């Protein structure tokens, strides 16, 4: 931290900086406070100050939401879909990137250089530009309008990045450890599973958290590739809800939004801890 002596100039000097930071950050804080306040109140004055405490906005948790004649499906199956989607993405992404990261870091095989170079270009390459072709591919392998299809697409698009992270963690493990494992009679899979993986647990949890959050927040692929309402995820459900209730009931939208945000908040708190550990997670073996 560049903390040069500035004591002589004191608070007066840094006041404009703090005023600037507070002014530009205030709208963000207000927006999230609004989300919280309006989900628990029946009316807001001046756009932000709550008036009248109520749980009515959270009614989607125990009953159907109705608008005229159309009734929205219950939020619970939709939530389950979102958990299934984010969970599958996490598991697949972690396993595949652990395998591939190991090969790219620890093995020397023909074609490795080509794979690494292609992956790095793909890493910079945006998946959304390929949406139309992905639609065709998913239709071809019969995975259109299926959560598994969205899972595979999302995993593939995130793999380059996840594999790079994992490869970086593998690179830092000393070779002596591996040597010792071979002398003790390990084969490649045992080495990977029993010796190397326990060394990079913090790294694995970081990748897992990123994967889960990305899966949970995923919108555009679910919105484009899932059509039946029984496959809807929370993102698609909420998008439809916003379309219908935007000018009618912000309280309901705020509550549903906050419900959707819960895992993000939880993981945000956890991830700060485990991300810190990456730097300190040393070699115990």
């Amino acid at each position, binding site marked *: 931290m560049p903390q040069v002596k500035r004591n002589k100039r004191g608070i007066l000097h840094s006041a404009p900086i703090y005023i600037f930071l507070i002014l530009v950050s205030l709208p963000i804080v207000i927006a999230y406070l609004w989300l919280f306040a309006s989900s628990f109140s029946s009316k807001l004055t001046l756009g932000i100050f709550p008036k009248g405490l109520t749980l009515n906005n959270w009614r989607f948790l125990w009953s159907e939401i109705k608008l005229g004649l159309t009734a929205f499906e219950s939020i619970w199956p939709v939530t389950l879909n979102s958990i299934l989607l984010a969970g599958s993405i996490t598991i697949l992404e972690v396993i595949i990137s652990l395998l591939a990261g190991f090969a790219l870091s620890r093995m020397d095989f023909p074609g490795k250089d080509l794979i690494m170079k292609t992956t790095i270009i793909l890493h910079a390459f945006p998946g959304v530009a390929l949406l*139309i072709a992905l639609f065709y591919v998913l239709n071809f392998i019969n995975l259109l309008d299926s959560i598994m299809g969205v899972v595979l697409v999302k995993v593939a698009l995130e793999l380059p990045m996840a594999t790079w992270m994992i490869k970086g963690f593998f690179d830092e493990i000393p070779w002596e450890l591996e040597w010792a494992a071979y002398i003790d009679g390990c084969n490649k899979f045992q080495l990977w599973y029993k010796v190397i993986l326990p060394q990079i647990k913090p790294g694995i949890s970081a990748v897992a958290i990123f994967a889960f959050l990305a899966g949970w927040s995923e919108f555009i692929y679910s919105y484009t590739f899932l059509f039946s309402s029984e496959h809807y995820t929370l993102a698609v459900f909420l998008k439809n809800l916003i379309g219908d209730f935007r000018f009618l009931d912000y309280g309901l939208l705020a509550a549903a939004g906050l419900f959707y945000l819960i895992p993000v908040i939880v993981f945000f708190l956890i991830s700060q801890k485990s991300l810190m550990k990456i730097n300190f997670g040393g070699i115990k073996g």
Partner: protein
Amino acid sequence: MEQYVQEKSLPVAYPKEAAETHVKRKSSFIAALPFIGPFLILIVLFYLVPVVLTIVMSFTGMDFTLEWKFVGLKNYIKLCQDKSAGIAALNTLKYVASTLLINVGFGFLLAITTTYFTKKQNTGLLFQTIWMLPRMTPAVIYALLWLWFLDPTEYGMLNAFFGKLFNAPPRDWILTSPMPVVIIANGLIGASLGMVVFSAAIKSIPESYFHAASVDGATDWDIIRYVIIPFLKWPIMFMTIWQTLSLLTSYEYILLITDGGPLNKSEVWALYSYHKAFGSYEFGYGAAISVVLVIIAVIIALVMLKVFGYDAMMNRGKTKVQG
């Protein structure tokens, strides 16, 4: 004598390399396949094949029946004469240039105020956490916050604010100025990435530089101009190119906030392709619009590889947060 010592001491002095060469012996591709196989299958199926398919599709008149009807260059000729595409191209130029300015400029401002000027490290971290919130928030909720903030009635924050302060009548902000809305909404997200990357770079500057500068009587402005900015040259360049690429192709927030409207006023190139494909089911035409992006993306990616080198890009990968 000298040679003898060197030969004798090599394996003892460098056990690390000895271990590496012992373990990392050449494997055949077959031996690596169990590890690299699943990765390759997914990458080929959902990355490489779609790139090729997008290009081939652009020469067809494919619609929702998904039949291959080759039409030659018809889509590209149509694209050149399409007035809406022209509007989209112009919008994209405005959108990318302005958002880039916010991402890099404002991101730099945030980084410097939270790391260099803020005395207590925790205070700086608090502001950085606040700015990370929009990035961590799912796109749908982030869009909801904007829709409420800009709501055309007095329930919207902005209208409530102006109404109370200046007694101004409520305005439909999205209707009157869709482009600024889209630019600021995306800029806030990008600024936090700039903030994180630049903060890390500022923190990595050796403290002795700052001491030396203050001994020489440098003002804060001098330190920014002659110490910090030269150190941040590469990160700034990297962010600029990286963000150009992601801004050109990202349309999620625009789709959710304005959906390109009103009347194409905030329609950007990538969203236009989406609308053509999934709005009016012109898959072939949509693919042709995408191909333009694919070509630009490949060029930018290659330029990045050339400018920043192979190793630098590998390390950059870790600092990328999301999207």
